[in-house]
């Protein structure tokens, strides 16, 4: 297969199936989301207007375009409920990503320094929870965090607290759930990077009399940065839109944006507002997503 840009028919055939699939089921749906965010809610099936009537020809298209408007966006930016939810989601994602880095970096570093023959086992131990159901792992924390749950009974037994603490339905529970669920996403890219780190560089620094902590800051950390970037983006982006964790572990007083979208869609049946929320969320995340894509492309496609 040539790499000179000339495409043979067999190359086109190989490419066509996944390409078309992604255009139809990934790209086109986003265009529909955007179109719907410009529509209005209606008591109808489907619950929005205007509908594009292709049978009416050009006049139908004009009618359709006249019906579009930015009302949903005006609503989104005038109601503090939505702005607050966006803000809270970004804060939760930022803080949890920082905690993930604090726990994940030492862990990945320790794994990379472990004896060679132990490393595959350690990697498997980190991957295994990632393969087990996300929902189950969040559910497991309900067992632990509820009022008469195991954390409270343990703390009461140890006489650290006198009365049960309401762990569940709080922001603390959200942070615990998020950090727990996303830890493998942070550790694995960091480990992959640290594991490739040339030990002779560290030895050279030591030979030149550099103290270990300084070597860590001047050699290890800069070389690990691509791994840090991958881990941070891989956690931060999905956490902003997280739904399951805040829904099951968080309180009802303030919601993250994923929950607001869910409620607008499933409970309020306000599809245009849900679509507008998704569009703005995507706009907020487009820069991190592009950075992630570039990092991924570099990691996988450079020769």
């Amino acid at each position, binding site marked *: 297969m040539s790499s000179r840009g000339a495409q043979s028919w067999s190359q086109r055939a190989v490419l066509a199936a996944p390409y078309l*699939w992604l255009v139809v089921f990934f790209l086109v749906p986003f265009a529909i989301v955007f179109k719907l965010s410009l529509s209005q809610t209606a008591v109808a099936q489907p619950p929005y207007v205007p509908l594009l009537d292709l049978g009416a020809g050009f006049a139908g298209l004009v009618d359709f375009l006249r019906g579009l408007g930015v009302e949903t966006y005006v609503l989104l930016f005038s109601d503090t409920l939505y702005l607050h939810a966006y803000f809270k989601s970004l804060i939760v994602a930022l803080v949890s990503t920082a905690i993930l880095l604090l726990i994940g970096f030492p*862990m990945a570093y320790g794994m990379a320094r472990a004896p060679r023959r132990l490393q595959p086992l350690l990697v498997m*131990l980190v991957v295994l929870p990632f393969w087990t159901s996300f929902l189950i792992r969040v*559910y497991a924390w309900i*067992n632990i965090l509820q009022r008469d749950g195991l954390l409270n009974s343990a703390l009461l037994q140890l006489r650290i607290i006198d009365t049960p603490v309401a762990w569940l339905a709080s922001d603390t529970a959200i942070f615990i759930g998020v950090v727990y669920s996303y830890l*493998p996403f942070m550790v694995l890219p960091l480990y992959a990077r640290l594991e490739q780190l040339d030990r002779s560089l560290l030895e050279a620094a030591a030979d030149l009399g550099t103290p270990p902590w300084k070597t860590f800051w001047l050699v290890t950390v800069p070389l690990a940065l691509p791994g840090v970037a991958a881990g941070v983006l891989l956690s931060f982006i999905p956490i902003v839109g997280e739904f399951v964790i805040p829904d099951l572990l968080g309180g009802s007083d303030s919601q993250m944006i994923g929950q607001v979208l869910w409620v607008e869609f499933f409970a309020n049946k306000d599809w245009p507002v*849900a679509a507008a929320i998704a569009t703005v969320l995507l706009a907020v995340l487009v820069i991190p997503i592009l950075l992630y894509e570039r990092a991924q492309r570099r990691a996988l496609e450079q020769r």
Partner: protein
Amino acid sequence: MLRGMSTFNVVAVAFGLAFLYLPILILVVYSFNHSQLVTVWGGWSLRWYRELLHDEAMLSSVWISLRVAALSATVATVLGTLAAAALTRFGRFRGRLLFSGMIYAPLVMPEVITGLALLLLFVALDADRGFWTVTIAHTTLTMCFVTIVVQSRLIGFDRSLEEAAWDLGCAPWKAFLVVTLPLIAPAVAAGWLLAFALSLDDLVIASFTSGPGATTLPLRIYSQVRLGVKPEINAICTILIAVVALATVALSLAAKRSALRGDPAAQG
């Protein structure tokens, strides 16, 4: 044997692993609890596993989820392997940037966005929501994961074998099928298993794209969990964890064995 590892490193790894495994361990232990109350230990018992066997709704959800996962993982593996071949072997082609963008974006895209977008597509197409729409949605999500897994394998691959086949007059597509595919088989299998596990696990996208009669297992578990913790849920979760753990261990043992046999495909 832990030579070269400072106390700090050992503690960091041990703490991380304990954090990852303790909640799962507690869940598994409490699935064997006889007591109705999840927090009171009432002795060992298989009571909740027996009740699970009589829960028709839960069993039918398991069956639906297994079918969706098997079908979507298989289609995703075919599409994902083709995509990986294109990205690693075709060099620059027109639309490559868009293509790789569409491959990598779903990996981090918040699920609520993907789910909503797919649902609106199905509404626009006037498709009845149910088994097929969930399967298509899962295929779209998981094929990207398969691509990444197979792609990393194809990069570390000795291309001289392929080139030797071409020199001997083998057509490129035939060389791929006869030479490359058997060598990357472990990665393709790992991709399929990952796709299967992801589909079995998905709640958010299934919530948007599923319909009446296609309540997958996570949808069923979620609706029960919202009503409170039930020991029966612990039991079904334990079974799921056991199945996934066994599959993962079996796969890695198989990969290790083929590496010992000197099979170049299993060497990274």
